[in-house]
């Protein structure tokens, strides 16, 4: 066996600078696939309702929102029936909240793997985020039924839906990798996540419309990336008058920033995960 056939790996203390090296993650795509598959397979085993949970969660929240915000508080909903208005936003929000939570706790939950096998650790939060997509798909079907029920015909804007789904995933991953890496070092993060999710929901136009925010401040409002994402979803699905342009642009920029810094931070901490977890 000649050396030139063997890939060479160097062991050395990592310096200050890290490369993202995403090709490494691509090499392990089979593992990514099986981790996602495992999570999905295991999630609803030994539950009575099984995959119905995926539908129930956003559906019941939608009913509660419709009663309290739509019916009692008479919250304006941009001329869309309130239940549909809320559900179209709950869809990406549920995906985001679920994926972010799972990703944030993913490394700590995979302690046994991290201390016993080598692979790019990024696969773990990535799998956690992607695992939310199946539930999303199921509840999306419910949305289509609702739209038919309310007789809403989508505009051409619906073609942008894949982009917005990608944006939710990117947002969840960006926040998720930050939380996951911090969680290894500071277990406080685990207790922060539920609070963060709850707080974030109030800051996001799920129960209300972003038009309630004055146009001057709407761009600043976009600093909450989920604001742009949620309004983007509503626009794409329900065909509101105008696309959420500047606000969305700010949201995308914030997501990109969070994602790049998050990935770098993750990579930098990666080598010490096995020691600190």
């Amino acid at each position, binding site marked *: *066996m000649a050396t030139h056939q063997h890939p060479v790996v160097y062991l050395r203390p990592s310096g200050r600078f890290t490369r993202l090296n995403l090709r490494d993650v691509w090499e392990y795509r089979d593992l990514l696939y099986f981790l996602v598959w495992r999570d999905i397979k295991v999630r609803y085993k030994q539950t009575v309702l099984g995959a119905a949970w995926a539908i129930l969660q956003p559906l019941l929240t939608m009913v509660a929102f419709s009663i309290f915000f739509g019916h009692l508080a008479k919250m304006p909903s941009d001329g869309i029936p309130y239940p549909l208005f809320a559900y179209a936003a709950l869809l990406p929000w549920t995906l985001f909240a679920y994926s972010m939570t799972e990703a944030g706790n993913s490394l700590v939950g995979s302690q046994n793997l991290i201390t*016993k096998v080598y692979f790019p650790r990024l696969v773990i939060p990535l799998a956690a985020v992607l695992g939310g997509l199946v539930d999303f798909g199921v509840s999306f079907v419910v949305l289509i039924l609702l739209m038919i029920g309310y007789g809403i015909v989508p505009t051409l804007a619906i073609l942008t839906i894949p982009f917005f789904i990608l944006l939710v995933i990117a947002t969840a991953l960006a926040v998720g990798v930050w939380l996951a890496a911090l969680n290894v070092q500071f277990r406080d993060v685990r207790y922060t996540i539920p609070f963060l999710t709850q707080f974030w929901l109030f800051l996001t136009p799920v129960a209300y419309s972003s038009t309630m925010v004055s146009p001057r401040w709407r761009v600043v409002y976009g600093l909450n990336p989920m604001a742009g994402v949620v309004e983007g979803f509503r626009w794409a699905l329900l065909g509101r008058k105008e696309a959420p342009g500047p606000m969305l642009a700010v949201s995308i920029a914030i997501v990109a920033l969070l994602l790049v810094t998050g990935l770098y931070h993750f990579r930098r901490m990666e080598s010490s995960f096995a020691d600190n977890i």
Partner: protein
Amino acid sequence: MSDLAIRLEGIGKSYRLGSINDADPRIRYGSLRESLAGAVRGLFRGRPPGDATAADRRFWALKDVSFEVRHGEIIGVIGSNGAGKSTLLKLISRITEPTEGLGEIHGRIGSLLEVGTGFHPELTGRENIFLNGTILGMKHAEVLRKFDEIVAFAEIEKFLDTPVKRYSSGMFVRLAFAVAVHLEPEILVVDEVLAVGDAEFQRKCLEKLRTIGGDGRTILLVSHNMAAIRSICQRGIVLDRGRLVAEGDVNTIADQYLAGALKSKVGGRVIETEVFVVDDVRIHSLDGPVVKTFDPVEILVDVTAKRDIKDPGVHIGILSADQHRLAGLDSKDFTTFPPLRSGEKTTMGFRIDSFPFLPGTWYMEVRLGEMAEFAFELAGDPVRFDVVETPVYGGRQMTNLHGQVGLTARAIGGTPV
């Protein structure tokens, strides 16, 4: 060199010691509060937030380790608990990175540090084969190709579609090991996995490892089972408290290690009782450098008297690995030792004509006392020693059915009447 597989140069790995009462230095739960508090304290004391004293509170799991392994070699890594064996394997497997030094790994590496890593109890045997295979670094296609072979090796055909949580522990281990040995890396790193499973399955695993080695692949093996190391490996390295202390032919190295490991038990620690300082606790066989079952064995305690002692006495207890007392010897039952003056040294102990304990790990518990005052005092923690892996009753490998203590016996009867 063209056939280099692994080269390490001055590799060291240190862990920061956590809070003071932290028993395991490797576990460091940070909390944000601690870090913030530390940073604030640092500010007020004019010290950088990193805290300069952290450097002194480091524990070196490995220090200055250098060696080379060529392709096709099977290397045994020998050392007592805490010598750094597992850390070394983790570094080579890239699970953790060195604090200092450099290493080169030529070729795809597969590590088997634990049997059944990533198995999910809710999934079936079939599903776990795929999951575990990819976790260990195989491609999906590779697992598919070897699927039948894995199932046959594990002997679980009938239970392929049963969740593994319903498997017996034997079946679980067989399946887990089967997946792992069908990895085909150029370099295989194996930690102590041979300790699991029944004797028959262990034999099968050893056979498999030998075949893998025969294919020209490189294996790094850690095991407490010296017989296994001797039978598979050609070369060995010995680690002691994080340093590489010996390297060479596996049999020579293993003998040296075993002899050395038994020489001194106290190892630099100062153990004192009310009236004695314990200088050393020794156990050795009169038949050779290592202790074997049925050997004539001496257990000796070297002491210095801290004051005048009228009637010195010693008590040795033999404990099993789970700290059950199996035997106890009291010097009072055999003799009276002469009185000692303050500062005088002596050696007290016992000779056991035929040491009955079977191969494995045992502990000695030492008690010393001034018998004129009827007081035995425990001298330090129980001291570990090993009885070496040898055929006790003339050949077969020992199993659980042999128990813990050997009996000199012969079979009688059986003649039809």
